[in-house]
């Protein structure tokens, strides 16, 4: 069992077309395992893992794994609101999943408002690229165009493989660090009635403590 002590909890949501690999990505991230076959997600599933950001602060990531299937779309919409970060997931071997990314992003922005989440663009199934074409797998989304899209929209971009584990950790740490940085700069705050960021079991007054610390640091600078 993981060490249950953490300083913050961030709620991240994974969105994207069905079968792009959201659940597999999360399974690898939280379990270190990869399943060749898995049932499609119903509504939303939950995963959790504690990571550490650069200064050693322990962050519990509560990960909302939404169903990509069209029929659940009306339901998953309800789940966006309390997220502080959103991973826009596409399949590098599925062109249309990448083309739907702007729609997913707009949807997320609309439902998470007035909060501004941290977005990351995550390409999945990178392990299929470069192998022979027997599986019919072929890169349909180049790294360059994905990166370009990410830059235009101010997102982080990373290509991953839930099979080999490549960049899986990085994708989540990237978002967590960015959220944490925004807490440090005061852009994000713990708010009543919004569960995007919560303080952990460890520190009931964690937020105050941190704000105080940040202020003192600033004052010494000036």
């Amino acid at each position, binding site marked *: 069992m993981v*060490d*249950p*002590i953490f300083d913050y909890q961030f709620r991240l949501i994974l969105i994207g077309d069905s079968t792009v690999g959201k659940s597999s990505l999360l399974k690898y991230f939280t379990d270190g395992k990869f399943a060749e076959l898995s049932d499609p997600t*119903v*509504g*939303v599933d*939950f995963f*959790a893992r504690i990571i550490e950001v650069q200064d050693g602060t322990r962050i519990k990531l*509560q990960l*909302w794994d939404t169903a990509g299937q069209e*029929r*659940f779309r*009306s*339901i998953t919409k*309800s*789940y966006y*609101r*309390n997220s502080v970060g959103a991973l826009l997931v596409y399949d590098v071997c599925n062109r249309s999943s990448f083309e739907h990314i702007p729609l997913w992003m707009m949807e997320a922005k609309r439902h998470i408002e007035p909060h501004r989440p941290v977005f990351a663009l995550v390409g999945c199934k990178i392990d299929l690229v470069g192998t022979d074409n027997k599986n019919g797998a072929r890169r349909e989304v180049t790294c360059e165009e994905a990166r370009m899209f990410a830059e235009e929209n101010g997102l982080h971009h990373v290509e991953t493989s839930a099979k080999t584990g490549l960049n899986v950790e990085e994708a989540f740490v990237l978002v967590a660090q960015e959220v944490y940085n925004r807490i440090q700069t005061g852009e994000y705050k713990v708010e009543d009635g919004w*569960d995007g960021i919560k303080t952990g*079991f*460890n520190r009931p007054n964690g937020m105050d403590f941190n704000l105080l610390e940040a202020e003192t640091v600033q004052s010494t600078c000036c």
Partner: protein
Amino acid sequence: MPSSDSEDFESADEGQTHTERKERKKRLSSSNYSENALESDSGPKETSTLTGKVEKPKAKTTDGWDDFDIDNPEESNTEVKSKEPSPKEEKQPKAKEETQPKAKENVKSQDTGWDDFDDWGQDDVISKNEMEQTSKPVNQSSNQQQTDRDIKEVTDRLASASTKGNSWGWGWGVDSLLSTATAGITTATAGFTTLTSQVSQGISTVLESGIGAPDPEELARKNNKEADTSAPKVEDTKPDEVKAKEDQPNAGANDGAFPFGSLLSGVTKFVETTGTKVIAGGLDTLETIGKKTMEVLQDGDPGLAKKRAMLGLDSGDKPVLSQILREAKAKAEEEDKVREEKREAKEVHYENLFDDFEGLVHLEALEMLSRQVTMRIEERMRGLDPEKRQDIKETLQQVAELCEMPEEDDEDDEPPSEGMSKPDAFHEKLQTATQDLGLKLVFQPLVKQYTDVLDWLDSSDPDIGEKAVYKRAVSSLAQCTALAVLVYHKAAEMLLVKPRRSTADEADALTQMTVVLTKHISELATLFTEKLNSISSENKEQINNHITNIFLEAGNSSTYIQNAFQLALPILQIGAV
């Protein structure tokens, strides 16, 4: 030369009484400086004669010390009370000040300055001696005996040095028994850096910078002021100053150096007032120097560990390192303990466990759905005319009634079918209850959890502690509740995307499922309390406490489950309107 030596020693001893001070002053003014020129030639010779003589006067000074003991209290008292600020207070800093200018001066004229310098060196020696013996500067004042002995030496030295013009060699020769510190200071100024040890460095620092002495300008100013205001005490000083001024040109020193002059006068005065005052002052000075020296030595180096290590007096820094390691370990253990306690606290904290098993987040997600659907229902009703709205309200009410929990009935508590395990029976009940729901709900996690609990209860060590059983009980209840909430959440999601609704059946199915689940919770609680009761522990009270808590948490679990059910109500209702 020898004659003058002995004379000086005598005068020093005599000088310890007030009456003879003035007389001695006169003598000094006439003899001391005028002799310097001659003495400078015969320095080396002196050394040999002196070494022999030092012992004798020492015996004599014992008498002087008796005097001192009597006289001193007054003196020191006045000092402490600062009633007479001018002579003594000034004297101390002045003497100290002199070390700096003297260092330069001495190059030109090694006369009076050196007397004083040696004295100072000796003071330091004594302080160092004390330091070595007591290692506690604070004890210095209380360590009267020790100080007495030391001061005896000082008086000897003072007395001898007072008339000694060229005491460079003198101090060097006689002081073989005196410490390295003298040497350190002498050499530091004279440039014998080879001998400078850590200690002497420290002492030089004291002499140069420390002992709380006012800076030279301040002193000079003070002197001027005093001369102007012509305080009675200053009269003593004035002739000295003149003398010093007179003396300086003789020695070939700077003519217009009034500060130096006054400093020199300080020296002279210091020498001249060798009596009880000097000794009293010397004693205080000694203390001050000793303390300051210790402070400087210990600055950033408590216990002198580093310096001792540097001097090779210790067996290296091993004990220090081990100490650090020990402390670090203790600290780490303390942190671990705190962490462990937190974890421990969390382990048996129902809400936290419920959260860890994703129960809370499923409940929350279900709540989100529920709210959304409720809003949708209200929206629909708003667009309708009042009559239809009333119909819908009635329908909603009917569905809500269908979902009311039946009265507790123990009758259908039929035993599980023959040849069927408890978990299987549980699974069957759940499936029977929800067969009209029209959904493929997954109960495996709940059944597996039940199996695990039963296995654990059967296989666990009969000597297991009540704490462990209690922990497992709370954890199992939290997990079971979380899994149950998950089922409601999934059911709600699937109902919302279900193409054809049959609200009445759905409501009935969910109600039955709720009954099965709450009964299951009771069953779990009972299993664990039975286990607790089977434990033969002398701490019956603790066990009863645990049992109470388990039933409390079971009640908590049932509440969560029924809340989840109530949250699912709008989802059932929307199928009907």
